[in-house]
């Protein structure tokens, strides 16, 4: 990362791997929104960055001019790695998405709530008496990985392996295609073995359920199945872990908000929406496939667009006091889970996990603050959240 050429002008040469962007992107986006609402860079073989809500929305809705076949901006384009439905365009997108949706409705997710509560309770019990912990490493990162494992029917102890793959695919893989392809190959082998185990003895889990799935009466291909499993594993873990981490990063620094949630836990779901707005973890990407114009900026086919839901959520034209975290914000039409046909399939799961994670922690540890002797570090790439978050319990 230190070897990257420094950015001199965010409007014409931005780099989302720049340490300043990783550390605190919000002032950069604010400046862009004023001066050059659709930024561009020649890095990564050409990428646009719309920073206004309306432009992000326009791209998200426009499946004619923008394709989801590439959804991560990388230095070199890898061979296409389908993970339907997130990498699908119409008309293939709808049937691929409908296949997964029933498993992710609010009612379907309720099945996992008690288990999530147990996971959180056990994690908190490990460090509650120790005077402090790393809220990202010891707590946030441990929750989604276990919940997803339970859903898919995989051992919860495999967390380290899953996190390594995610780090390789979403972070290291941006600049290192060899690392990316190695991780993709390993996930394929791992999931093939899991499919094999279930052929003779189906289980009560999502993998078995997907193995039975049909589109237009025909079973889905093994590639489709592997892609969907990879998607659920990757998209369901570091995203939610980042969101949970950001909640604690905020609460560790804002004692009034923390005390209010401790005193009034019924406010937690509303606060979660505000944390999702202000600290939305996920930036997606699209490939421009036809000449088009967004926010007055002509876009060329073959280039990529960073689709920053986090920037959209901070647009003062849409959100009053956009840079302030207002935990009881009533009108909150945020786009943390995307807009349009690619709305995050795991949104109900993520909301449940974040809410439960806050409830269980605040019950046992109502008072905490950032460790002044330690440094908070942030993830690189297009999922944003704290990766080290040392806190001290008061």
């Amino acid at each position, binding site marked *: 990362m230190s070897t990257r050429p420094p950015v001199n002008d965010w409007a014409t040469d931005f780099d989302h791997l720049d340490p300043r962007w990783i550390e605190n992107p919000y002032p950069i986006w604010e400046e862009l929104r004023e001066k050059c609402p659709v930024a561009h860079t020649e890095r990564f073989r050409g990428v646009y960055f719309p920073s206004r809500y309306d432009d992000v929305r326009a791209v998200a809705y426009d499946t004619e001019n923008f394709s989801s076949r590439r959804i991560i901006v990388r230095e070199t384009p890898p061979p296409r790695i389908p993970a339907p439905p997130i990498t699908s365009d119409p008309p293939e997108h709808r049937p691929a998405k409908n296949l997964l*949706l029933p498993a992710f409705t*609010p009612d379907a997710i309720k099945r996992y709530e008690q288990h999530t509560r147990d996971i959180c309770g056990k994690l908190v019990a490990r460090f509650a008496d120790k005077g402090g912990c790393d809220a990202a490493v010891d707590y946030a990162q441990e929750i989604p990985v276990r919940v997803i494992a339970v859903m898919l029917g995989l051992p919860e102890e495999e967390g380290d392996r899953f996190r390594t793959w995610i780090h390789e695919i979403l972070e290291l893989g941006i600049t290192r295609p060899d690392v990316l392809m190695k991780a993709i190959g390993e996930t394929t082998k791992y999931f093939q073995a899991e499919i094999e185990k279930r052929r003779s003895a189906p289980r009560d889990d999502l993998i078995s359920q997907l193995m039975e799935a049909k589109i237009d009466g025909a079973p889905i291909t093994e590639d489709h199945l592997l892609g969907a499993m990879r998607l659920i594993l990757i998209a369901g873990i570091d995203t939610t872990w980042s969101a949970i981490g950001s909640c604690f990063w905020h609460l560790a620094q804002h004692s009034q908000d923390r005390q209010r949630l401790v005193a009034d836990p019924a406010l937690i779901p509303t606060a979660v929406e505000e944390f999702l707005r202000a600290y939305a973890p996920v930036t997606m990407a699209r490939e421009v496939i036809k000449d088009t114009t967004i926010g007055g900026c002509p876009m060329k086919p073959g280039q990529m667009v960073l689709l920053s839901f986090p920037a959209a959520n901070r647009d003062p034209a849409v959100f009053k006091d956009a840079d302030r975290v207002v935990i009881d914000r009533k009108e909150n039409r945020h786009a943390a889970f995307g807009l349009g046909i690619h709305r995050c399939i795991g949104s*109900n799961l993520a909301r449940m996990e974040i809410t439960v994670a806050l409830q269980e922690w605040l019950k046992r540890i109502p008072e905490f603050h950032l460790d002044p002797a330690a440094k908070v570090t942030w993830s690189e790439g297009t999922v944003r959240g704290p990766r080290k978050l040392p806190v001290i319990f008061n």
Partner: protein
Amino acid sequence: VTKVKVDREKCQGHARCAALAPELFVLDALGNAREAGDGTVPEALIEKAYLAKANCPELAIEVIEEKA
């Protein structure tokens, strides 16, 4: 009479309406919303109807005030 209506073409299943006003919205098997019954909003729930509308990321909810 006040009514709510979900535009089924616009709805993408964010499920905010069903969370904020469960009396007024129901979700189908895919998690997409529709108005409960014929969408009529009892007087006491009018505020909730507007709250659901204000929180729909897809602008898929209409609150209609019909003159009797």
